Every structure is written in C-alpha cells, then in structure tokens.
C-alpha cells in the first residue's frame, strides 16, 4: 500500500468526484461531455496499469512471429508495420503460421480492448 496517491488512484478519485458531485450539477447539454471525461479518466487509468504489459507482450510475440525481425525493427511501431506488410503479401495465409498470427492478433486485440472498453470483451475471452 502506498502512502500517497499514485496517478491511477488520483484518476479513480477524480472520476468518482466527477460522477457523484459534478455530473448531477451539470446542465443537460453538458452531461454527455461529462460522461466522456469520466470515460477518458477510466481509460487512462487502465492504460497506466496495463498498457506497458500489453505493449511488451505484443512486442515479444511480434518478434517471435516475424522470426528474427532485423534488429532495426525493434520497438512496437516497426514490428507492427512489418507484420502488417507480411499479412498483406500473404505470408500468413496458411497453416501453422496463420494460426499463430491469428492467436497473436486475438490476444493483442483483447489486451487493448481490456484497456479501451472492457465491457466489449466476450465472456469466453475475459
């Protein structure tokens, strides 16, 4: 337990204040904006908690999937670009490679949906 609040706790506390104290006092036409702010605070808090792990997991799976991507392709954006290109040119169309790629993409999408909108996760995947 921490002695002072970290960013995640600050956001959760700010969100509670917004939903319980500020939102009821907002005029009707500002309610949607208030709900969007509450949503943003929840996403940002989840990304602080889980974003690093999601990105690290994605990177290491990509590195494996692309079998010795060049050292210059380290880091998530170039690895994603390499996979995107390989998919487009049909390198993952068939067989075990296809299954491995599908598994990687499913895992990656689920990790990011868990951050952006966990309610959209299907039960069997959560």
């Amino acid at each position, binding site marked *: 337990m921490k002695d002072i609040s970290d960013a995640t706790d600050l956001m959760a506390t700010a969100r509670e204040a917004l939903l319980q104290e500020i939102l009821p006092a907002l005029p009707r036409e500002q309610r949607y*904006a208030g709900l969007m702010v509450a949503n*943003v605070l929840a996403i940002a808090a989840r990304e602080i908690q889980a974003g690093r792990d999601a990105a690290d997991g994605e990177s290491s799976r990509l590195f494996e999937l692309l079998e010795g991507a060049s050292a210059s392709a380290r880091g998530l954006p170039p690895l994603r670009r390499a996979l*995107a290109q390989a*998919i487009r040119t049909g390198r993952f169309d068939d067989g075990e490679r296809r299954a491995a790629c599908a598994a990687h993409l499913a895992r990656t999408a689920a990790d*990011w949906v868990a951050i952006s909108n966990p309610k959209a996760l299907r039960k069997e995947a959560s």
Partner: protein
Amino acid sequence: MTSSAVQMTTQEENADASLGDKAARWLAREMRANSVSVREFARLPGGAIQDNWALDVAVDGGAWRGEHRFVLRTDAPSGVAASLTRAQEFAVLAVAHRAGVTAPEPLFLCRDQRITGREFFVMRRLPGVAAGHVLVRDAALVPDRDALAEELGANLARIHAIRPPQPELADLAPAAADHARATIASYRAYLDTLDDAFPALEWGLRWCELRAPAPWDVTLIHRDYRTGNYLVDTGHLTGALDWEFAGWGDPREDIGWFTARCWRFGASEREAGGIARVDPFLDGYARVSGRRATRFDLDYWQVMAHLRWAVIALQQAQRHVAGGERSLELALTGRIVHELEYEILHLISQEAR
C-alpha cells in the same frame, strides 16, 4: 401581407438575420408566397457532419400557404471528405423518394451560397424517434420488433431497386466493377497514409480479399443505413435519414452495415441493428427484392462494415491528433478501433460455422 410588407421585413432584419430567417426569406421567393414566417427554428440532435434544423413555418399566399414542419439541412463547419454535397444528396433523396423509399420528401434546394453562406436544402419533417440507444431498449417505442425489422429490410430493398444509370445522379462517382475489391484497395491506400500500422485491420482486409464473393449487380447503396439513422413512430418506420454517403455499389455492403455488431447499441444478441433477429429483416428484404443474403454474405459484409468503421474512426482520430481540431469526442472515437479489430478477428475466427 403585401409584397411591400415583405420588403419592410427584409430591411428590418437585414442587419442580423439568423440562418432560419434568411432561409425563410429565400423560401418565400421559391414558393412565390407573400411571406414565410418562422414559428420555430431549433437545431436537431445528431449529425457531426451535417447540421439539421427543425424549421416550422407559416406561409402566407401561394400554393404553399398554411403551416409546415420542415427540416433544414446544411453542412456543418467541418466536413468529411467522402460525403456528398447537399445538391447531390438532394438529388439522391428525390430519386429515392420517387422510387417509393420511406424517406423524407426533399422540397427545396438552395445552391446559392450567398443566401446563408452554405448550400442547404429543405425537406419535410417526419415524426418519430431516431436515437439508437433508445430504440433498442424502449419496448414501448417498438412493440413488435420483428415487424419493424421486416419494414427496415423491405425499405432497404427499395433503395437497392434503384439501378444505374439515373440521369439525375450522373455526378455520383461511377460504380467499381468489383465493389468489394475496390473498397479493400481504398482502405489499404488510406492505411498507407498513416504513421502507425494496424495488423488486425490488415488481417481483415486480407481475409476479405481472399474470400471476395462474386459481385451482385450494382445498385444505389445508402452506406449509412443503420439504427440511429432512421425514424420510428408508433412502432413503424417513418423515414431513412442521412443520405450523405450514398453511392453506387454492392447492395450487400448496406446489409452488412445494418447488421454489424457495432451498430446494435449494446443489444448484441439482436443482429438486425439491435432491433430484432436477422431473419425478419432478411424476410422483408427478400419480399421486395427476391434476394436473400446468406450467412456467409452476412459475415463477410459485417467484417467489411467493421473495417469501414475503423477507417472512419481513424480519420476522426486524425482530425484530433493531427488536424488541429482538438476534441474529446474525436479522440474517443479513435479508441473504438480496438473494439472493431477485436470484432473483425472474432468474425473471422467463426468462419467455419
């Protein structure tokens, strides 16, 4: 009221005339009326790309004399590249309305930008509720869900009965020989303009490319026919709205868009737009068109629908991130891409069913 009274009114309000008043004065000339008085002018909800205003008027003299409930539709300050001009949309609506499609009747088009600063048109205002999250939840508004889905399917088939060539629609982009493949190429070209890569979207595009079905005959397609974009009054469809993306293409694109999970407003188990099971929707479509989408057609064009929504969401995100249009709503729309990727992957993984 005499024409000199119109003159006076014009002069009095000239200094600071509102959009509604300017449109009313223009309408008076179009209607050959003595005057058109604005009884109510209020912005209607929805429409990030178009501005819609409720315009209630009282017309003095001429063939239109009496009271009317109109909608004035004009460009919002920030547009989306893919959408039609108001003049094109007016023409599409006119053709559709004449073909018996349940849609608002377009009445007057103003192409002269000197009147209000932008093109606009006036159409009849129809009764009903459009809000998707309300329609899928409120059983009182939709007492017979299957019946509404049937009407929606039948109405979509009436749109798809409109085939090229249509002289009034000559300035719409011509149809691609293979709509699915042309669409895939355009989404790839867009993704190539971005800094980030989206492997899951590429996965969906590759799947669609390898399984592209033989095209159906080209028809008019609405390209935004979904829950949230039609009006329902006393449980029945009163009008299909928002025709700004209409064009020529494979009619199954509209079927996929209507049934895609991303447009079910949380009522995911009801495949027909969160309203009902898919069967009554397909029944209504088949009753009018004689054609029925297969399970594979639905899966294929639902993947396409999620790809299209992902491309639009990325465009919205770009407006916020790079386009100098800072907006919470645009930023959050960009985050929807994760859910869309997740759904694309799910649909593809279900292929064997």
